[in-house]
């Protein structure tokens, strides 16, 4: 199987005016499921296309195991790719679509039939084999496109936002399906998405990208538990982490609202920010008997069934809080508290301190 390494890979467009990727350094281990996660325009798709060979890096090197592959055409890399819009050949039937990569590679017809039947079975699309792509549902198209990618037994499997065109229910279904197939086949997989739920649920490892550079590489749990920068902290989680501006007063954190937190500030940076996940904050309408609180005003209360989302205005910005239930209504003055051990401290450059 295959290990992918990217070494200082950069990609520029328009003669250098547009930087799509800048000095990407990362490894995808053999059989690993890696997710490129980032907002639109962050360069994740370009990075994937460079691995596929559809784009050549402007600088840097890409290796599959020990072979340098940048510069080799996609056909010679034994990669398979699933496109966002599935890219099924509209003039071929489902069977012909799945068969096409085998046909191009000169696999004999008997073996072709056998392998097509196998993947059709794996993806439960036996009944659609004679249909045109235009006649089948979105989910079936997705399966066909996966089948076409898998049938070749590629060494690297690349997926570019494959679930974004499906409705919510189908997306959940395909998510576990994809994970199952990847587990079964053990193919090295790179998956691009802007949907962090997908990323968290499927990835063995997540590569967070923004502005064309890698912000953090971590497994899902670590990414959630220890976001390395304020940018990642604000990107991960729904709603994302709340950040309170503060300053470093003799090694203690003092919030802009005037409260000193019982929290050490082990940094030389003068300004700091404190990050707290919405589920780690408590709200109370009466002042609690702790020596500090963060006072605010309730803006909106959204009862979502599973929890209640309270949006609180604190010093001009909005803090999201998830609580099981609350009596607070819009306009109420409210006190926020949290356990300082649940909070993350970031220095003035937005880097995680502790």
């Amino acid at each position, binding site marked *: 199987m295959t290990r992918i390494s990217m070494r200082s890979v950069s990609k520029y467009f328009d003669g250098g005016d547009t930087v799509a990727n800048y000095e990407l350094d990362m490894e995808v281990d053999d059989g690993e499921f890696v997710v490129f996660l980032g907002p639109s325009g962050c360069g994740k798709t370009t990075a994937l296309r460079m691995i596929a*060979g*559809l784009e050549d890096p402007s600088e840097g090197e890409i290796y599959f195991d020990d072979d340098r592959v940048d510069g080799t055409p996609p*056909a010679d890399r034994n990669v398979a790719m699933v496109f966002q*819009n599935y*890219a099924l*050949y509209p003039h071929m039937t489902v069977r012909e679509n799945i068969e096409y*990569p085998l046909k*191009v590679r000169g696999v004999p017809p008997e073996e072709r039939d056998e392998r097509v039947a196998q993947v059709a079975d794996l993806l439960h699309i036996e009944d659609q084999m004679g249909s045109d792509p235009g006649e089948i549902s979105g989910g079936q198209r997705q399966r066909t496109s996966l089948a076409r990618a898998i049938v070749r037994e590629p060494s690297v499997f690349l997926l570019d936002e494959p679930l974004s065109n499906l409705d919510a229910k189908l997306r959940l279904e395909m998510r576990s399906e994809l994970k199952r197939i990847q587990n079964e086949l053990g193919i090295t997989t790179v998956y691009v998405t802007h949907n962090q739920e997908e990323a968290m649920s499927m990835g063995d490892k997540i590569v967070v990208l923004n502005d064309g550079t890698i912000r953090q590489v971590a497994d899902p749990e670590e990414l959630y538990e220890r976001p390395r920068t304020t940018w990642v902290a604000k990107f991960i989680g729904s709603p994302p982490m709340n950040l309170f501006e503060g300053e470093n007063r003799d090694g203690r954190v003092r919030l802009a609202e005037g409260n000193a937190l019982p929290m050490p500030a082990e940094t030389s940076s003068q300004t700091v920010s404190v990050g707290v996940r919405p589920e780690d904050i408590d709200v109370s309408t009466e002042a609690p008997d702790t020596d500090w609180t963060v006072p605010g005003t309730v803006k909106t209360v959204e009862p979502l069934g599973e929890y209640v989302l309270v949006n609180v205005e604190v010093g001009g910005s909005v803090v999201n809080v998830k609580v099981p239930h609350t009596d607070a209504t819009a306009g109420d003055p409210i006190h926020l508290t949290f356990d300082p051990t649940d909070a993350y401290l970031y220095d003035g450059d937005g880097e995680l301190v502790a």
Partner: protein
Amino acid sequence: MSVESYLEDRLDRDVDGEKLTAILVFMLPGLTLFGIFSVGPMLYSAVGSFFTWDGFTIGQFAGFETWIATLNDDAIINWDNLLALEYPMGALPQNIIWMVVHVPLSTFLGLGLALLFADLRGRSVLRSMVFLAFTTPTVVIGLVLLFVYDPQAGIFNELLRVIGLEGQVRNWTQEPQIAIYALIAGGVWVQTGFSMLLYSSALAGIDPALLESARVDGAGRFRRFKDIIWPLVKPVTAVVVIMSMIWVIRIFAIVYAAGGPSGGPGGAFSVLGLEVYQAAFSVPIEYSKAMVVALIELVIALPMAWYIASMD
């Protein structure tokens, strides 16, 4: 469903009288124009071709006399030369040869240029340059051909001299056996612009992900063309082919400008349109012959027009 049950089904349905009237009223202007300018002249020619004509006055019923005479007229079909494969073969075979050579050439050239220009910087300028020929009046194209092929000052002969093919230098439009091909080249130049334009938009309509997917699947340049591009532009190919066939069957001005009313030396590149013009407007006026030739043209063009019109 059998034809009978289909008809019964149609008849059983209640015909909404008011709706029918409304439909007819709205169709009346269109049908009137269509009748006066299309169906009328066709019927008029069809009937007229079986009569003798004195100038533009209808005379006696003549049966198939004009038809037989026309099909044995050397200007229309020169049977002896046709069998010997020598020009002039007559306007009908020459027109068909024109079609056979012209249509594939202009179609593939158009597709080739469209593919070539697809990812090129400045493609709109290049496309305009190629398409310019199609917008030029065909009479002008014919005149330009005369300049290009001029035995003394023509650029084509000069080009041959420059690349060392002095032996090939000749009077291209006056040599009976090759003159028609010299003119076809001009026609191809015109039609290539048209087919290139249609193919360009067809190519632009192909999802780039399909071609990328084919690349990842392992298809090289040729296979991508053969397996993906060609099948996807097929409907456009049908339009391009039929439109150029119709264009060739109607061709007139290029031939007239380059070879005069006789259609080149001994009519070596005469075409049907030219013969219609000759028969109807030059002395002696043979109106019924003009009708026969026009009907032959129509019989060739009508199925193609029908095919184009019934395409989805």
